[in-house]
């Protein structure tokens, strides 16, 4: 059993049928409790997942895929319709306070009170978690060092920059030293510098043994930061594993060759390489030969050896790996960037404050 254990988790919303836009439930039967003029939107349709202690786990998917809904259920803020969630062995529905003591949660909106100083924000949060005034003060001292809060500690929240606010949001989620930290879209709206700082802070947390569960719709964030990811689309998990494993599942790497301009060099090279066992596909794309191979690193020397042996001169050779977007495309049939574009259109998305 992992530190987070999710079995068959489900959640539906009842919303008003506004008579426009695509139906998100795709003609699912109306639940008994829904009245006329209402539609049931199945936000989460049965999720199974195990997260191990000390990993950075990423929940990757487009806006509206069910990421935040799932996260709220994990963080005891939303009651599931079905299934179970255990965190550190405690049931989120039956033992919410045991769970709350062990988790930190930073929502997309953050949580920094604009009308209070950083210290007041942290003190309140610490006291609500049951720390004594002394313990809170000591904890703030250590957070000031680890998150570099010196400059914002005694200023009002409304004077913070976006990056500063995110830092305090993170500190608020960590004030009680939780075993598991949930971060909902932590870097949305951050500038590149603040973003990489936040990544580093998350890695430091992992180094200290904290399990970090983040949601993101950024491919590079899932790829670079997370030890393991689950791809979620339309309320279901469609793939799960380490980013490199997932990319390995997509049909191979692409080797792109440009050859010495000798007559028929491309055609000859294609003829020569196509029968090889490691080549899945060979296509002449204008003045390049593109090979789809299983393992790019292993294929490169073999390709070079074969071409050299037949006297075909290689001008350049490039190896490109499939991206997580290729994985997303492979498992869902549409690309993440495309799904994002649809979700961002005015009819494709409802509600949700993003600040």
């Amino acid at each position, binding site marked *: 059993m992992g530190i987070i254990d999710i079995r068959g988790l489900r959640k539906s919303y009842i919303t008003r049928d506004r008579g426009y836009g695509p139906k998100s439930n795709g003609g699912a039967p109306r639940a008994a409790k829904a009245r006329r003029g209402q539609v049931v939107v199945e936000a989460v349709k049965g999720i199974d997942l195990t997260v191990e202690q000390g990993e950075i786990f990423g929940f990757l998917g487009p806006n509206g895929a069910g990421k935040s809904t799932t996260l*709220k259920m994990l*963080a*005891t*803020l*939303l009651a599931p319709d079905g299934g179970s969630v255990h965190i550190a062995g405690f049931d989120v529905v039956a033992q919410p*306070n045991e769970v*709350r*003591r062990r*988790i*930190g*949660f930073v*929502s*997309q*909106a*953050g*949580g*920094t*009170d*604009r*009308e*209070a100083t950083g210290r*007041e924000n942290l003190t*309140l*949060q610490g*006291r*609500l*978690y*049951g720390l004594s005034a002394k313990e809170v003060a000591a904890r703030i001292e250590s957070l000031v060092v680890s998150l570099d809060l010196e400059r914002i500690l005694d200023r009002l929240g409304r004077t913070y920059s976006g990056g500063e606010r995110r830092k305090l*949001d993170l500190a*608020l989620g960590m004030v009680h030293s939780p075993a598991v930290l949930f971060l909902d879209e932590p870097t949305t709206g951050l500038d590149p510098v603040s973003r990489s700082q936040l990544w580093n802070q998350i890695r430091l947390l992992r180094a200290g043994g904290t399990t970090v569960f983040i949601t993101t719709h950024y491919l590079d964030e899932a790829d670079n930061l997370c030890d393991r990811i689950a791809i979620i689309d339309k309320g279901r998990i469609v793939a799960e594993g380490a980013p490199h494993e997932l990319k390995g599942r997509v049909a191979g790497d692409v080797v792109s060759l440009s050859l010495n301009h000798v007559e028929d060099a491309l055609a000859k090279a294609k003829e020569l390489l196509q029968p090889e066992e490691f080549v899945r596909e060979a296509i002449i794309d204008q003045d390049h030969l593109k090979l789809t191979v299983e393992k790019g690193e292993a294929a490169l020397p073999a390709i070079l050896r074969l071409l050299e042996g037949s006297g075909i001169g290689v001008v350049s050779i490039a190896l490109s790996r499939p991206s997580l977007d290729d994985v997303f495309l492979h498992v869902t049939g549409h690309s993440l960037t495309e799904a994002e574009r649809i979700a961002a259109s005015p009819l494709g998305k409802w509600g949700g*404050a993003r*600040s």
Partner: protein
Amino acid sequence: MKFLADLWVLFKRNIRASLRNKVWLFIGLFQPILYLLLFAPLLKGLANVPGFPQGGPYTVFTPGLLVMVAIFSTAYVGFGLVSEIRYGVVERMMVTPTRRLALLLGYVLRDIVVLLLQSLIVIAIAIPLGLTVNLLGLLATLGMMVLTGALMASFSYALALRVKDESSLASVLNLLSAPLLLLSGITLPLTLAPAVIRAIALANPFAYEVTGARSLFVGNFDNSAILIGIAYLALLAGLSFLWAARSFRRGTA
């Protein structure tokens, strides 16, 4: 006990936020003060009209004005909650092991304290203008105002948690405020009103409160409106608080 400790921490935090925004405290007082200075003098000419309650214009008008302060300074507290929900502050508190009831009570108690502060300022201004008041009657009136504040603040929070945006909240509150004001006898005593309006006003708890408070101010504790008003307000405050508590338990999602 963790509940009381949390409540104290939350109450202090809310009070600090209110006192930091002193401007709002005084904006809330601006209207009542205008009524005292620009409306109450108009009642002087009515003092001899049959049906006008005993006491001078300020003694008759100030109790009504206090009820108005009680209703309207607390009716709009939901706006603060909407903005705290938007910034994730409420969610961040709900993810701690604190009880939802402590969160709600921390807000409502703050609103009651702010209301009492505002009432005392109104009274302090009214006394030099000609208000005379029975001290015991004033205490009983403040008690009714605490109930009114609890009622309206809880109602406002429950509504805020339901609609979650300022414009819907404003429409509902505006819809309710005019009839409540007109049918409570705050500006002019209902004893001057035709029988039909008086009959409709029988359903309005604030009408009993205003009549009761006027009676208490001149030291008349016999008026049945006092007890009816207190019982009616206590019942509604209880119901409204239960609604708000239920909304808080359900969370902000």
